[in-house]
């Protein structure tokens, strides 16, 4: 090993993201497209390289094909390196048998040998589920300054939402006095972001102990961190200010995309000093036609726009024919929206076809009962027939014939 890295990152990317329904039928949640040309995993990966962390293990388990293919040799993130770089770590057969990753901690436990090869001082644990820009180097400085064994990134969430998160009660010096997992009556609004830095030697010891423990869920949040806390290890919270979003549900994925159109939202993807890198297709600039109208939207390479686009995010190679309308929607790569079709308050996945005159989704204002409203979702490669109608909240997984 040429240069021993001080800190390596382990990115947990095995989750299914079951609340994203048909969007994660064939891909893992970190591979879900976001923001016109990214996938969720671009954010933690880009944060790593921008923070100077060049050794990243990506732990995959659920539907890894597309994710593995996307990460490839790591070239888009400058992670194709002779020393370090990105490594896909899948569960593997061992002499004592075959095991899936049972929990987040077990996934790291099964890759102790990988980490030992680099013999780092610190290990950064990340999840591939969140949209945020964060300098992990600053967090590492804080970790060292506090002489901590474990530092957990936290952010203050609105009190009314606090009960959905794992919360921490933090002392004035930043040390953590108590943990509360999704409590009914929260006593704190400081939520864990699922970003941890551990002293590797200490973590290693706790992973081995946790594995030996009967009945442990082998999870960081439920098992390993409480065990460390009970033993009086030095646990600190690192406060993060800035945009952070868990895109775990259809609505939050839709929101997080539309956040990009809101100038008040603090997520600048055009920041030269903190680029978000992605693997992009080779496509020419997009074309806006003679009769098109595009406002308050994001459009990327390869799109051919003839219709009206408003408050929407369009991914690469999307075609919107003349007279079609796309409003408050997310349209993923390669989808075609034909003449006179209307796509509103929807997420349309990759390579779908919305035939002429079809209507997908509905505005909440037009609902008799707002409770029934929700974002409509069209799955990968699905065709919605001529003049067909897709109700709000619907999840369409297979072709729908025409209305005639």
């Amino acid at each position, binding site marked *: 090993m040429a240069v021993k890295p001080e800190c390596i990152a382990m990115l947990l990317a095995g989750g299914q993201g079951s609340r994203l329904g048909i969007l994660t039928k064939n891909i893992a949640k970190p591979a879900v497209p976001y923001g016109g040309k990214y996938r969720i995993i671009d954010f933690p990966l880009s944060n790593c390289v921008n923070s100077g962390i060049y050794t990243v293990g990506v732990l995959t388990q659920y539907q890894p094909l597309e994710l593995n293919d996307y990460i490839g040799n790591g070239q888009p993130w400058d992670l194709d390196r002779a020393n370090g770089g990105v490594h896909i770590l899948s569960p593997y057969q061992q002499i004592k048998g075959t095991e899936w990753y049972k929990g987040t901690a077990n996934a790291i436990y099964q890759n102790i040998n990988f980490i030992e090869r680099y013999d780092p001082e610190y290990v950064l644990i990340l999840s591939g589920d969140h949209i945020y820009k964060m300098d992990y180097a600053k967090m590492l400085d804080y970790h060292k300054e506090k002489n901590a064994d474990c530092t957990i990134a936290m952010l203050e969430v609105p009190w009314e939402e606090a009960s959905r998160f794992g919360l921490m009660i933090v002392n004035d010096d930043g040390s953590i006095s108590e943990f509360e997992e999704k409590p009914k009556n929260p006593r704190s609004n400081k939520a864990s972001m699922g970003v941890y830095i551990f002293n590797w030697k200490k973590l290693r010891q706790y992973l081995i102990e946790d594995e030996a423990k009967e009945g442990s869920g082998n999870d960081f949040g439920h098992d390993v961190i409480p065990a460390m806390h009970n033993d009086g290890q030095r646990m600190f919270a690192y406060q993060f200010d800035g945009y952070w979003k868990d895109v775990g549900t259809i609505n939050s994925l839709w929101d997080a995309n539309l956040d990009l159109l809101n100038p008040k939202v603090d997520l600048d993807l055009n920041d030269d000093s903190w680029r978000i890198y992605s693997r992009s297709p080779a496509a020419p600039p*997009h074309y806006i036609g003679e009769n*098109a109208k595009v406002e*308050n939207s994001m459009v990327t390479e390869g799109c051919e726009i003839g219709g009206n*686009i408003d408050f929407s*995010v369009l991914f690469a190679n999307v075609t919107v024919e003349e007279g079609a309308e796309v409003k408050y929607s997310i349209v993923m790569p390669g989808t075609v929206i034909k003449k006179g079709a209307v796509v509103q308050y929807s997420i349309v996945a990759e390579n779908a076809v919305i035939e002429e005159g079809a209507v997908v989704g509905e505005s909440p204002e037009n609902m008799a009962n707002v409770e029934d409203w929700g974002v409509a979702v069209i799955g990968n490669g699905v065709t919605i027939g001529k003049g067909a109608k897709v109700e709000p909240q619907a999840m369409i997984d297979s072709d729908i014939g025409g209305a005639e």
Partner: protein
Amino acid sequence: MAANNVLGIIFSNANDEVIPELTALRTMGSIPFAGRYRLIDFPLSNMVNAGISKVGVITKSNYRSLMDHIGSGKAWDLSRKREGMTILPPYNLPGTGMIKGKADALYNSINYIEKSGKDHVLLTDCNVICNMDYEALYKAHVANDADVTVAYAKGIPPRMEANTEIIMDENSRVTDTKILDCYSSDVNYSLKVMIIRRTLLERLLHEAHSSKIDDFETIICNNVKHIRIYGYEVTGFIKVIGSLQSYYDISLELLKLENRKELFTADRPVYTKVRDEVPAFYGIGASVKNSLIADGCRIEGEVENSILFRGVTVAKGAKIKNSIVMQGSFIGENSTLDCVIIDKAAVLKPNKMLCGASNYPVYIGKGIVI
């Protein structure tokens, strides 16, 4: 792949003199084109798409922007241990001085050509905009057992110096060539893309060197009777950039869907350096018609019949018509542009107006602030 027995050679500086405005600071090959490309992307991608895996890029002067753009060749999958892309900078052999013509430039790289071990060499300039199937060109070359195969197009040739018309028999064998002086009728004109047998190329280069002939085309034309030269017709969207005016006209022709479809095909993509720009953002009140817009643009004004490169800002109330605005330029509030070519990173402050004519576009240089 079929064309794996071909060495690719690109002349990045050939014809620099025809667009002095755009080549003042760069090579012909690094002239920005079509919103996110440089001219060299077209021949380079054509080569890679044909399976050519060893490419030499001949440079002469002002090639920093070119090197910045092509780097190690990664974007074209040409950064390799075996073969891959090599930049061939000028090389002063004792007593030769600065390289002059193409023959001289090739002679300078004769070791590289010899060592390639390939049986054929494909030579091309950068100012031909075409998604050309080099594999088909190579197959025709082999099928004819040709020494040289020259790609040509049929039509009214571009106005340029030293345009060559090729005259063929019924089997496409070239029987004669002549320098064009007429630009009004349809002829078969050379696209300056040719495949030549490597050993023949080496022999011709040694001869040219000893007889002090610079112009490579002349050497080929002089030998038309002695070597088997064939023509290969290329159809579809083929444009030769021969002046600032033709740069402007050809650029705007890409606003037509049928032209884009021919130049940007899914099975033979055009690769370029990736810049990781965010998708283009359209503000409230933006109005864009019949235009090509690259990533990283922020548009709050009006854009019509124009091409915006990556990272261009169009402020509120600004109007851009019939214009080409290159990477990173800024068009201030209530400013107006009509028939203008703006080079990279220029700034037009608020309330300014610049107008050219469609047959005389105004050119604003790199980094200029108005």
